[in-house]
């Protein structure tokens, strides 16, 4: 029995080493690219960092809570539009709300982030409160359907560009930084990712994390100790939606553009792919998954128009053969749960 304990420990230690290597790699490659004057590499790294953030958000619901949400693009899109709407009003000097109080738009990132987080949380609260009345396959289908509802709404609602999306011509500002400089924007996104990962690491060890984790494994167990599994899951879903919305705001700022495509079910699928590819319920699983996905997209896409076939095959192999995802494979720690 003690042998098994040591195994868990050494696997955990190795996972930490892998996490540090991953984070260092994601931090250092853009730095190298900066010296080597390869700004596009920095853009790719920024994309990876932001997608990793979105995946980290989903991982709270999916990995810790066992909630297979196939509609997380909703929150990603809401974050994107929070940025787009605020910035476009600021850009056009057109107040967001005229009455009862005048609320101006803003191009100040911290405010945009807060609004994105709140909007994502509120949407997650409503969708979660409805969807969590069910579980299992129902939950998957319902979240997918809600995602589709938002997608169609975004396309057909004329006020903010409809299918054309919302273009912001200048990236929003952050005090003390020139956000248009790729390396500085990368640093900002990377810092946000680190903060969220730190928060996430704390969350996993917190009483809430412990309870949520137990609720995933046995609903009866948390009920029997007097906790409401519905509330635990709803809280996880809201947190998860809020973080994914923050990622959406950063993503829209990276592209200086918010579009209904951010709501699409394919994007929900892709966010899920980051999480699974890297390893469910692992702190840096989404990070590993996002980095690999962006690299695949870039290099495989360069090889063949039909690169989705290879992506599909790879995904199939990971699901069928490597249950713990890439990090599980590397750390020799099988599945994170189950």
């Amino acid at each position, binding site marked *: 029995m003690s042998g098994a304990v040591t195994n868990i420990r050494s696997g955990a230690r190795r996972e930490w080493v892998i996490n540090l290597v991953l984070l260092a790699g994601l931090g250092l490659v853009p730095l190298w690219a900066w010296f080597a004057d390869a*700004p*596009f590499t920095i853009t790719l790294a920024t994309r990876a960092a932001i997608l990793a953030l979105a995946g980290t958000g989903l991982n709270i619901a999916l990995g810790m809570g066992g909630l297979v949400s196939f509609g997380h693009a909703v929150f990603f899109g809401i974050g994107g539009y929070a940025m787009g709407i605020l910035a476009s009003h600021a850009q056009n000097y057109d107040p967001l709300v005229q009455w009862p109080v005048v609320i101006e738009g803003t191009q100040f990132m911290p405010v945009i982030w807060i609004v994105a987080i709140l909007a994502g949380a509120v949407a997650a609260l409503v969708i979660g409160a409805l969807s969590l009345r069910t579980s299992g396959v129902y939950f998957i289908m319902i979240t997918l359907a809600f995602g589709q509802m938002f997608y*169609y709404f975004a396309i057909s609602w004329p006020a903010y560009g409809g*299918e*054309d*999306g919302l273009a912001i011509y200048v990236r929003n500002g952050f005090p003390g930084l020139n956000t248009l400089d790729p390396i500085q924007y990368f640093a900002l996104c990377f810092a946000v990712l680190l903060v969220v990962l730190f928060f996430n690491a704390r969350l996993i060890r917190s009483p809430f994390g412990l309870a949520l984790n137990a609720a995933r494994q046995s609903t009866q167990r948390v009920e029997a100790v007097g906790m409401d599994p519905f509330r635990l899951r709803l809280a996880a879903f809201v947190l998860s939606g809020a973080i994914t919305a923050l990622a959406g705001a950063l993503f829209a700022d990276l592209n200086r553009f918010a579009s209904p495509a951010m709501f699409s079910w394919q994007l929900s699928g892709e966010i899920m792919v980051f999480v699974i590819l890297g390893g469910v319920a692992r702190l840096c699983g989404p990070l590993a998954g996002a980095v690999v996905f962006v690299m695949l997209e870039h290099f495989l896409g360069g090889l063949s128009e039909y690169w989705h076939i290879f992506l599909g095959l790879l995904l199939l192999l990971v699901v069928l053969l490597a249950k713990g995802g890439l990090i599980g494979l590397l750390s020799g720690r099988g599945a994170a749960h189950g």
Partner: protein
Amino acid sequence: MRMKSLALAAALSLSVTLPAAAEPVKVGMITTLSGGGAGLGIDVRDGFMLAVKNSGNTDLELVVEDDQQKPDIAVQLADKMIQSEKVDILTGIIWSNLAMAVVPAATAQGKFYLSPNAGPSALAGKGCHENYFNVAWQNDNLHEAAGAYANDAGFKNSFILAPNYPAGKDALTGYKRFYKGDVAGEIYTQLGQNDYAAEIAQIRASGADSVFFFLPGGMGIAFMKQYAASGVGMPLIGPAFSFDQGILQAVGEAALGVKNTSQWNKDIDNPANKAFVESFQAEYGRLPSLYASQGFDTANLILSAMGKASVGDADAFRAALEEADFDSVRGSFKFASNHHPVQDIYVREVIKEGDVFTNKIIGTALKDHADAYAAECKL
């Protein structure tokens, strides 16, 4: 994201007629090569490459990438083309929403953007830019021509429909701008909708004498097939997009006889067009489409400017582009002050040549037509 560098064989330089440019030009093409909309991007790319090949000019280097019809990918590719590939000119985007995502940022960074397809009104009016040129049309143009044609054909009561998204709204606005009769009904359908039974029932009940529709891609195929099956016999009018060479075969008999408006057709009688149609068929083994013609013209515009000025001298190069001194396959072609085309727009009819469905020009809807937004442009 297929990358295709075009290094052309020296043997082709036999046919060089243009004066050698002072310096090579690198063109980045971002277009849709995978997914449902891939056919359009492939045609633009093929048309463009054909023009370069026919010219024999080896100073134009082309980099092609697939945007997957996703705005965020398009933006990312534009960054890559500008930052890593250091291209001088961007082109290739098919869809308005992708163009809106890419063009403003690209032109703001001092790059030229030549649109081979999308022409959103925002970029033609207030949002116009000295480095943005549209070689195809402003989005409203073909719809306006359809409205004009409806007047000529004596239609007094049109039923109009388009998907509920910005280009769809532009389409109905464009039609109504020129159409003088009554509107029997106006419907916005869902984007990507594939069943039009409900709309056709309303058309049947409306008592209209004609139907104008703008439903690009698979939506148009579905609509026309279902319309033909419904027995509602009123004449259809639409812009060229639903009647293009690539898509027409999938519509089949249902499209026969339908009138549509286009700035190009393969039977326009001029030497440049003849050469284009013949060489396209020889090169790719299929009839060229509208999109191929637009890609072809875009490349020729660039080549003509390269012969006059160095791309390093932005002002001179821009002036050379403005002259539009190339043999367009459409015949007469010039730019308005907002860098959008002034051109004839024709009425075509869908016919069957042997086994192949295609179009034949039956008249001109609008002569030397420019767009409605030029006045708002401060160029």
